[in-house]
């Protein structure tokens, strides 16, 4: 159910009010109806008493004292009172002249259910029928005493007097009452809506203000925050969640902008190098050797840019989980040593040496390409950024929780609180953009994504002048139980 909250609240109020009012109205109608019918029944009872008081029973027949009374004599309204006398066997003894010779079958109706009830009279209009037993015992509501002048009526032979009266007037009254109540309920509902509307609007004002404040927030104003202290209690949690979301969105936009700027920066520098080389080479006639040197420099830079773009593409694929992880049997020790061998000359030229701490027989099921990517970056970083005494320690082993591989190197000036940033894209400890290393600050970010793709994790620590990165894989030794 969509639509404005104000409309929904007002409709709910209207529904609630109309339900209450209709319920109360219905109850009131029922109560009044019961009372009116009871009063009507009392009137019928009074008619019956009057009829019974004029009753004479002589020689086995019943006669009214004053002869045949027209019904209007008895009627408390303009409608005639209809009556029938029956003996105990159900034989009709007498009935009102208005009924004529017609038998409305009241005996059957009364005999089937001897309570006051609504019946159809001769003209099919509604009437109320009540029955009374006439005996010589004390008079009560349904027993009417005979006059003293008729002692010949034996008490064990009661008469039944059935009296019916048209309920036309009653029905009209009830009809009017019903519609009156409906009208009053409807009017009250409409009035309550009209009166409530400004209060509802006023009550919703904080929400409308919030809605306006949120509408003002766009990608250029992500610094805005909603003041949850001023919000109604019910939506305060919404404010807090929204503020959290805005914080994360602002951070995401900032990192996206930073990433785009970093990518542009990383590519601009080698492009500027290419341009400088070519511009200067072409500025004047040069020897073939000079051109060859310039072209070789250009090629080196092109390879660097190619490496950066490859890394960016790889990172994008890992981010999107589009790298198909192909697991095979991998000898970790062998892979580590092979990866180091490809870099050992460069490291040796810098005076860096490596100490191994490898368990034997580390065979696991994993993706060798991703592992190689991780090992290459870890070892290269360690060799490049190692401080004196330039000793790297590479360790690998398997325990209950899985496989762990770590590379550690001396690094004096990496504070422990900035260690987490080593995984940020394009982050370098030294903010210069010198082209040392081909990864442009993407190496460890790539390793982290690769570790994630392998179902593992990467942890960096910096303690006591040692920088350590550990790769944890939930992979057990092949052939173990």
């Amino acid at each position, binding site marked *: 159910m969509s639509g404005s909250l104000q409309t929904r609240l007002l409709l709910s109020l209207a529904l609630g009010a109309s339900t209450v009012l209709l319920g109360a109205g219905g109850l009131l109608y029922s109560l009044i109806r019961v009372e009116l019918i009871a009063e009507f029944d009392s009137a019928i009872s009074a008619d019956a008493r009057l009829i019974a008081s004029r009753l004479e029973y002589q020689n086995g027949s019943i006669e009214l004292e004053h002869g045949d009374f027209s019904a209007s004599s008895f009627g408390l309204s303009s409608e005639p009172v209809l009556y029938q006398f029956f003996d105990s066997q159900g034989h009709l003894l007498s009935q009102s002249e208005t009924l004529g010779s017609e038998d409305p079958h009241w005996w059957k109706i009364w005999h089937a259910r001897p309570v006051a009830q609504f019946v159809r009279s001769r003209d099919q209009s509604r009437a109320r029928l009540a029955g009374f037993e006439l005996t010589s015992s004390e008079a009560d509501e349904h027993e009417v005493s005979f006059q003293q002048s008729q002692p010949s009526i034996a008490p064990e032979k009661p008469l039944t007097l059935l009296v019916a009266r048209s309920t036309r007037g009653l029905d009209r009254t009830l009809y009017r009452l019903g519609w009156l109540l409906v009208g009053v309920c409807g009017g009250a509902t409409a009035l309550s809506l009209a009166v409530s509307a400004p209060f509802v609007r006023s009550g919703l004002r904080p929400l409308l203000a919030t809605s306006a404040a949120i509408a003002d927030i766009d990608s250029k104003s992500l610094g805005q925050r909603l003041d949850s202290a001023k919000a109604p209690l019910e939506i305060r949690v919404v404010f807090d969640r929204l503020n959290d979301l805005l914080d994360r969105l602002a951070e995401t936009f900032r990192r996206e902008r930073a990433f785009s700027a970093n990518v542009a920066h990383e590519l601009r520098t080698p492009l500027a190098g290419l341009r400088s080389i070519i511009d200067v080479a072409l500025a*004047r006639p040069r020897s073939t050797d000079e051109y060859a040197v310039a072209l070789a420099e250009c090629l080196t830079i092109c390879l660097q840019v190619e490496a950066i773009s490859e890394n960016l593409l790889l990172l994008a694929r890992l981010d999107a989980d589009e790298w198909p992880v192909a697991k095979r049997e991998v000898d970790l020790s062998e892979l580590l040593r092979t990866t180091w061998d490809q870099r050992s000359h460069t490291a040796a030229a810098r005076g860096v040496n490596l100490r191994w701490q490898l368990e034997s027989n580390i065979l696991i099921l994993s993706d060798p390409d991703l592992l190689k990517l991780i090992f290459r970056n870890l070892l290269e970083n360690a060799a490049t950024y190692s401080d004196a005494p330039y000793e790297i320690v590479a360790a690998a082993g398997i325990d209950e929780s899985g496989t762990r591989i770590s590379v550690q190197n001396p690094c004096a000036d990496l504070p422990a609180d900035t260690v987490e940033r080593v995984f940020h894209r394009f982050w370098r400890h030294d903010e210069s953009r010198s082209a040392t290393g081909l990864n442009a600050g993407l190496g460890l970010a790539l390793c982290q994504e690769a570790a994630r793709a392998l179902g593992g994790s990467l942890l960096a620590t910096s303690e006591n002048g040692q920088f350590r990165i550990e790769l944890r894989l939930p992979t057990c030794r092949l052939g173990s139980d």
Partner: protein
Amino acid sequence: MRVLIVEDYAPIRVNVAQGLREEGFAVDAAANGQDGLWFAQSQNYDVIILDLMLPKVDGRSILRQLRATGRKACVLILTARNEIDDRVNCLNAGADDYLVKPFAFAELLARVRTLVRRKYDQVVPLIHIGDLEIESAARVVRRGGRVIELTSREYMLLEYLAVREGQLVTRSEIWEHVYDFHAEGSSNVVDVYVGYLRKKLEAEGESRLIHTRRGQGYWIGEQK
């Protein structure tokens, strides 16, 4: 004129330095901020080409320190950052010009020359001293319509004296502005080159333009 380039990315640093030297500038180059700051504070450069993102000491810090110590070298910022805020901040911090990477070497050269002219209050790249005419953009020297062929060092010396026409220029000033850090030092190399220059300028008996003030230095201008 003497130029310092402080740029950690070797292809840019090496090739720009080479290109500027080939255009007649004395060029010193530093690969990190620390060395760059040392160079900048120890010499009077005409132009400093300064990268912002440098190892050890960043370009902004170098710029701030230079201006704080009253160094008058013109500073051209070289950077990959192209945001307006970055440019405005650098110019407000005291930079004289800003060039975004990648750039055309010809543009860099033109901007460096403009900064040099500005430093020596030259409005146009054409210097007239009597019947001597120096086109600094084309590096062409004429006297009385005669084109004079000069070596690179001779031209640099003549240009420096010419932008300071009428002013006494000491030997050390000539050394600072015409020779780079790696030039071989010799106490009379300036005198020797002044001699070479005079010979070429007066080859057809023209009047002397480069004058000596004994024990102090040289000045260029028409003798009154």
